[in-house]
């Protein structure tokens, strides 16, 4: 501890003044925090900060993505020939699968007409770039580069190609914050694909490796579920459209009471999401805020 050298002691009056400043600042902070409790929607402070920072964040994200892309292209060149052959083979397989799926979709559409069913997902979406991801240690949120000017509204569903990512919790003109499904305060009504077992998922951290998981609660202890079974949104919460993929059942804790805890691995990984889809029109057709 030879680095610790005592400096001169401050004057008592200046120290007293500092304590007064601390007290005044504490009171100011408490007033500022308590004001938010009664204020509905996004605060003026938050709106200003986000508006000022979001263009800079967007530029930084573009530069980072450009540098990363250039480096990736350089690295990719080394194994491009081998990869090309592999991709061609995969493309042939995919085309065959696509043909089969097209036939299935056409058959499905015919059956829908016969049964007079409307399509379940009348969502229009727009593509947004992720400009910041989990940058706060406390919350699982991401920032995107589309806001109210592009039609994003509070509560809009945010999707990745593999499933639900979360929903918009604050919107400014050209950016928005998204609360991820793996956040501890998030929630979604879900059901299992095969067993049609209802439940509610919210974010938790895995005790082992700390990776974000979902905990499906309120599942009756007698309900039948299988490991690896798909979990999809049920639409009962009026927040998410029905039938969107949420994840797969990872493990099931045997119940001590009436309900069992089902651990779900989210299908959409926010750690790798670079671009996301945001719904721009709600179920009714208008971009109506949810609160």
């Amino acid at each position, binding site marked *: 501890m030879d*680095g610790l050298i005592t400096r001169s002691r401050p004057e008592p009056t200046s120290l007293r003044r500092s304590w007064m400043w*601390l007290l005044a600042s504490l009171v100011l902070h408490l007033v500022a925090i308590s004001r938010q409790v009664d204020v509905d929607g996004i605060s003026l402070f938050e709106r200003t900060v986000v508006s000022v920072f979001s263009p800079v964040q967007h530029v930084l994200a573009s530069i980072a993505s450009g540098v990363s892309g250039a480096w990736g292209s350089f690295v990719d060149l080394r194994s491009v020939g081998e990869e090309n052959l592999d991709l061609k083979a995969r493309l042939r397989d995919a085309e065959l699968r696509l043909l089969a799926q097209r036939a299935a979709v056409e058959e499905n559409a015919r059956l829908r007409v016969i049964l007079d069913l409307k399509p379940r997902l009348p969502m229009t979406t727009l593509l947004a770039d992720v400009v*910041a991801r989990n*940058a706060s240690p406390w919350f699982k949120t991401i920032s995107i580069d589309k806001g109210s000017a592009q039609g994003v509204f509070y509560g809009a569903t945010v999707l990745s190609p593999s499933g639900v990512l979360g929903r918009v919790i604050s919107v400014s003109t050209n950016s928005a914050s998204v609360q991820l499904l793996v956040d501890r*305060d998030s929630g979604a009504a879900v059901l299992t694909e095969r067993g049609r077992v209802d439940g509610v998922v919210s974010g938790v951290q895995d005790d082992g490796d700390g990776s974000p998981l979902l905990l499906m609660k309120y599942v009756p202890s007698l309900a039948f579920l299988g490991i690896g079974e798909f979990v999809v949104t049920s639409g009962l919460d009026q927040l998410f459209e029905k039938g969107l993929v949420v994840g797969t059942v990872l493990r099931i804790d045997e119940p001590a009471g009436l309900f069992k805890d089902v651990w779900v691995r989210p299908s959409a990984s926010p750690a790798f999401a670079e671009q996301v889809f945001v719904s721009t029109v709600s179920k009714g057709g208008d971009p109506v805020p949810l609160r």
Partner: protein
Amino acid sequence: MKENLIALCLLLLSLLLQGGLSLFLPISAYLDLPLVVATWFALSRGEILGMVGGSLSGWLSEALFGRGIKGVSGLIRLVLGFALGLLGSRFLINGALPRFSLLLTVTVIDTRVFEWIAPSFGLSPVQYSPTAMTVRGSINATVGLVLFALFERHRARTA
């Protein structure tokens, strides 16, 4: 005045870096750059500017990346900035070991106090296990040591 402005710019830069780096790795789980810079700010500028720096880093971090009620982190870092400013005005904390210990302690206090206070404001923050907390604190402290050395070199050159 100029030095204070530079320090303030560094604080803002650290926030942008935190956001930018988060695109490649879950940086917040390991490193809190605004906290490290605010710690340096408080230690080198005294309690009043320490309060300002701490409070700003908390408020801006929450406004940019948080959700729900804002200002809880700002409140905690205000008090931390004040305490660090007092400490910095009384002692010269120069050695690597004292600095490492201080940064580790600051990270643990900041994280644990937030986890403790946040539920009172209706927030449910990520809870760090003791191991994750130690890793996070150690990484913050290591990065802090490097940054502190850089800041000092810059100050010595401009003095």
